[in-house]
């Protein structure tokens, strides 16, 4: 070997060693951090599960935690033991309870999760089915300061897009008086306030069937096999196991909406109608802009003219001519439709 080659070899070795052992940035340090992080994720997921069960009035056992987190209960035992020693939970026999510290920790995680979902829903175009998945990741990564900044930026939202209240930064959460859809009697009407986003397959199906927070439904029939409700003038049938994932608040008799649910997109040029509502699927920036333009319940909108290809369409809204795309017009419900006078 020439001295030159030795020099190059030496430098190569040094670089490799640095890459491996460099504090914080090196490979080993990263692996250690990743392991710590998955540990943290487990702790946090376990706390969330405990909180969830407790708020439903259920008790938590080792088995339920293992099922929820999906790993062998041997690991579980040590995890739970650790949680106990750092004072996040107490144990009575086989039943676990969160301590106040544990509960506030869990609420912090839930707050970040719901804030992030709110952010995705309002400020981005990330699809609805990805909100929960993304939030599951972010809830473990975001620091308290980042969460506070996000909260400020979003204008301190009180609810997440699924209708769940977002805990305040001091860990307060309001009591909710929700019932499940299955508890409704025949003929009773209610507004959907929350759709449980787990398991994701159930959530996706409910969304696909057209349920959203704010939707008003009326119970038509309830048997042990299926539940039939009326919503937006349509009958929707669903399995009881799905219906149990829908939380509702019963409506007093006077507040029920009736009437047609045609959308703005169905207006032909020259026809006019009165706005009866904007779909809750239209959120954040989209919704604000529509309302600023004067698309507000009670307002009269007339379809003015089509563009060359028929999309967008220009509407006459409170004296101004404003073009909207079909996808937007489909989110605006109208009634009392009439032709041009």
């Amino acid at each position, binding site marked *: 070997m020439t001295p030159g080659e030795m020099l190059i070899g030496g430098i190569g070795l040094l670089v490799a060693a640095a890459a491996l052992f460099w504090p914080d940035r090196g490979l080993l340090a990263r692996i250690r951090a990743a392991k710590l992080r998955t540990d943290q994720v487990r702790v946090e997921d376990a706390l969330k599960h405990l909180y969830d069960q407790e708020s439903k009035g259920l008790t938590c056992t080792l088995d339920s935690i293992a099922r929820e987190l999906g790993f062998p209960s041997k690991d579980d035992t040590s995890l739970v033991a650790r949680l106990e020693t750092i004072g996040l939970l107490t144990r009575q026999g086989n039943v676990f309870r969160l301590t106040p510290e544990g509960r506030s920790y869990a609420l912090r995680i839930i707050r970040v999760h719901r804030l992030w979902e709110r952010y995705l829903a309002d400020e981005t175009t990330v699809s609805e089915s990805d909100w929960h998945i993304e939030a599951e990741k972010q809830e473990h990564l975001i620091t308290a300061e980042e969460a506070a900044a996000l909260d400020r930026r979003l204008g301190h939202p009180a609810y997440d897009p699924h209708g769940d209240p977002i805990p305040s930064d001091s860990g307060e959460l309001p009591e909710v008086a929700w019932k499940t859809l299955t508890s409704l009697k025949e003929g009773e009407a209610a507004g959907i306030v929350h759709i449980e986003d787990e398991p994701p397959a159930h959530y996706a199906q409910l969304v696909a069937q057209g349920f959203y927070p704010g939707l008003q439904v009326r119970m038509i029939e309830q048997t042990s096999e299926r539940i039939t409700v009326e919503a937006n003038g349509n009958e929707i049938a669903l399995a009881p196991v799905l219906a149990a994932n829908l939380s509702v608040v019963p409506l007093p008799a006077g507040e029920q909406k009736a009437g047609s649910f045609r959308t703005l997109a169905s207006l032909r040029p020259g026809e006019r109608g009165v706005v009866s509502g904007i779909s809750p699927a239209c959120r954040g920036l989209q919704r604000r802009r529509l309302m600023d333009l*004067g698309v507000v319940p009670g307002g009269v909108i007339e379809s003015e003219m089509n563009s060359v290809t028929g999309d967008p369409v220009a509407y006459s809204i409170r004296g101004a001519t404003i073009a909207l795309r079909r996808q937007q017009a489909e989110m605006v419900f109208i009634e009392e439709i009439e032709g041009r006078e």
Partner: protein
Amino acid sequence: MAYPEQCEICPVNRGSKLVKLGETSDSTDYVIALAGNPNVGKSTVFNNLTGLRQHTGNWPGKTVTRAEGAFSYDGSNYKVVDLPGTYSLMSTSTDEEVARDFILFGRPDVAVVVMDATRLERNLNLVLQVLEITDKAVVCVNLVDEAERKGITIDDRSLARELGVPVVLTAARIGRGIPELLRSIRDVATGALVCKPRRGWTEDKKVKSALDELVALIGPEYPGLPNVRWVALRLLEGDQRIIDAIRSGELKSLALRGEHGEEVISRGKE
């Protein structure tokens, strides 16, 4: 004031006592905020008052930056701040924040809201929001010439009665109504005319009780605040700017100024 003597001579300005000062003036007696929806001829009104030439395109959202100008009328110097054109002051776009912040925290002596006479209903949205924030406002219904061509007549007296502030009909493109606008601005600025703006539209029960509760909390704490109900409403909306203003005491100083209104009016004269 550097050149009123010369301008006084020309017949156009002698009658109206208006001296356009362009971009700068030495001292300012009163600050005027110019608000309005996009594309209502706000820039034309601005140019008409100050003699500046801001571009006025037939495009919503043309004026992006905040422009300032000045004029002198009836012996006092006025600074005009042209705010970005916005549809409302409620949502959270930067433009709306700039406009809202100036009307609230900038404490202009008069907020002039420019409206499009052909779309009065749409424009009233912003007017009502401005009136929620400030007592001292003048409504300028612009483009009346265009409205007349379309067969639209605006009853300015009825509108003034409904809104509780002076209403002036103008066609700024041809200079119509500008003298009346100036007179109203002066009257409101000097306090010769005290506005009683329309406030408090209907709220449903749940919101009303929440608002009442907040008003009862805020009112005694900030006497002299002209818009307690609006502040309460913004708090319910989770408006960060207002939360910050409460925390930092900025709102307190606004309230204190409101209590000693006279001092506020005479500021800038020294």
